[in-house]
């Protein structure tokens, strides 16, 4: 699509072009090599855990998959809740900045949201323990008492508020800046003519956004959500500090027995781990690789089906 040649005349190969394009290829290859190295490292370290005899693995798991399954579930579940919270919010914020807020304010507002990205995850964790969890706990109590019939909200309620919902809220806040930033850039790239055409046809601002901005931005929004998910899946320290983990698989949002995430579990158990446990933790890291990969592949697939709307075309 961007090739500067036509079939009839072959473009002259300039030195600059050659250097530039090979340096980009080099950069891409470095990434491949780096990843291959990381992957090789992980696989080699994982093998002892994959073939471990029952009884040697942590948590008395009979084999590695029994050990890792609650963690995989917890990772996906926490990231999913976070994404459900963060996606509408970040689209809303990005729209607010790109299409609603007075233009002079917009830049400043964007900057304010970017500030969130500046907060290190340890601080998010501390804030989650000290401020957010105690703040949410009364609401949780209320929810369990009054809405306990709803499976997600069934009790017994956590006494500290350090539930998976709290952790997911922290995750959502952590994902917001990067998701908002991408959505905002994408929204701002909507062709001006499309927007003006919609408005000229008598559309309200929302109708204009619905018909012109959102379809154009769909691929970008999905990419943004995936970037957010990437952050949510791999987040370590904030979850390790905020969540009250247990060895369970459940969908309850408000109890103190919450499934743990892979990354947080590594952070929690690694310092005291010896022997096969170390390998098991690294193997769970390898599983996280695969999970992320699966999620991203689905996203890629969705984006590619929608490529017709992508800006560069």
């Amino acid at each position: 699509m961007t090739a500067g040649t036509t079939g009839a005349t072959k473009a002259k190969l300039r030195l600059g072009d050659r250097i530039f394009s090979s340096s980009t290829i080099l950069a891409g290859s470095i990434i491949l090599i780096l990843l291959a190295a990381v992957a090789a490292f992980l696989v080699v370290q994982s093998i002892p855990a994959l073939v471990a005899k029952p009884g040697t693995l942590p948590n008395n798991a009979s084999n590695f998959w029994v050990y890792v399954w609650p963690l995989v579930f917890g990772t996906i579940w926490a990231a999913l809740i976070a994404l459900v919270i963060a996606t509408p919010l970040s689209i809303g914020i990005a729209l607010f900045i790109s299409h609603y807020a007075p233009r002079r304010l917009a830049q400043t507002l964007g900057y304010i949201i970017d500030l969130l990205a500046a907060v290190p995850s340890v601080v998010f964790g501390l804030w989650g323990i000290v401020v957010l969890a105690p703040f949410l706990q009364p609401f949780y109590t209320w929810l369990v008492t009054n809405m306990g019939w709803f499976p997600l909200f069934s009790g017994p309620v956590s006494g500290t508020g350090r539930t998976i919902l709290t952790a997911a809220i922290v995750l959502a806040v952590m994902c917001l800046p990067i998701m908002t930033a991408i959505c905002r850039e994408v929204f701002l790239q909507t062709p001006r003519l499309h927007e003006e055409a919609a408005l000229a046809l008598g559309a309200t601002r929302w109708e204009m956004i619905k018909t012109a901005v959102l379809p154009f931005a769909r691929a970008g929004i999905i990419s943004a959500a995936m970037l957010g998910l990437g952050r949510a899946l791999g987040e370590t320290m904030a979850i390790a500090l905020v969540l009250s983990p247990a060895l369970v698989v459940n969908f309850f949002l408000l109890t103190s027995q919450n499934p743990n995430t892979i990354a947080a579990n590594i952070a929690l158990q690694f310092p005291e781990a010896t022997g096969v446990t170390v390998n098991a933790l690294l193997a769970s890291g390898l599983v996280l690789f695969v999970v992320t990969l699966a999620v991203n592949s689905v996203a890629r697939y969705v984006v590619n089906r929608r490529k017709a709307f992508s800006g560069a075309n």
Partner: protein
Amino acid sequence: MSTATIARPMTNSLTAGKLPRGSSWFVLVGSWLIFGGLFAILHASGATKDFNIIGTIFFGTVFFDVVIYVISLLVEGGRRATDRLVTSLVATAFIIALLPLVSLLWTVVANGLGRMIQPSFFQDSMRNVIDAGGGALHAVVGTLEITGMATLISVPIGLLAAIYLAEYGRGHLARGITFFVDVMMGIPSIVAGLFAYALFALIFNDPGVRSGFMGSIALSVLMIPVVVRSCEEILRLVPNELREASFALGVPKWLTVLKVVLPTSLAGITTGIMLSIARVIGETAPLLLVCGFTASMNYNLFSDRMMTLPVFVYTQYANQGANPQPFLDRAWAAALTLIIIVMLLNLAGRIITKVFAPKYGR
């Protein structure tokens, strides 16, 4: 939404059937006041410990969304009501996002500012400090050097790879890179640390090797995919017309990329890079593994242990002494310092963008 449930007779006047200007603001402040009153009563009756300001704003704003929709539906009809609802929802989203930010910044500033403005915080390290006193100079230096080096490694590689994907990429290699960048996004930070450790232990054949540079490598592993993904996304948004116009003028491709594509997307790229720096500058686990822990100064990136701010925050919090207050003070002050550093970097990025980016439409 039921857009046609209430059909109102059309009138010719331009202002008939419309809410007066400023009514949204009126309703918003009104609903805040209502919930403020509600929580004040709860507070006065002793049901809650202190006045719940966050609850007031949150529930007031949500209440506002409902009220403005109903009012608008009654006065202005379905389409306008939907428009107002979306407007208010979008504003709500923004306000909700501000709540944690404000709460978080307030927590950090309230706990950390007092300690940070003491000059010793930027003059002293923690060497031979066991209780009160001491500072984070060694950690500030470590963070700046390690993150700076990680940026120097990641941004050229990441940006070039993004350019490759957006401008050149075809076939297997491009697909492979895209695929593996996606995979890299999922590397847990501690694995990046372990990898860097294993790599250097192998190269130097010394299991005791620790240096700031190892931390930079670990951070690069985490940073590169973020740079690639965000830059690629931004580069793909540059309209093809610009590239075609450039080609039509006989500009070679590499110059087109350098002089047309990159400047056009400079704002987005800068944002992406700043976000990726922010993503890694707060990493704790890998740095604790590969940079170690020290209470003393170390300016040399390539040898010996180096302290960084996130590790400083974490260890001060996790290893409090019998008198925890000085430790907590230092932890919050260091957290505040870290946020300020990222803010300054962000600000610098924005100024640079402003100076170099071409002026256009928006």
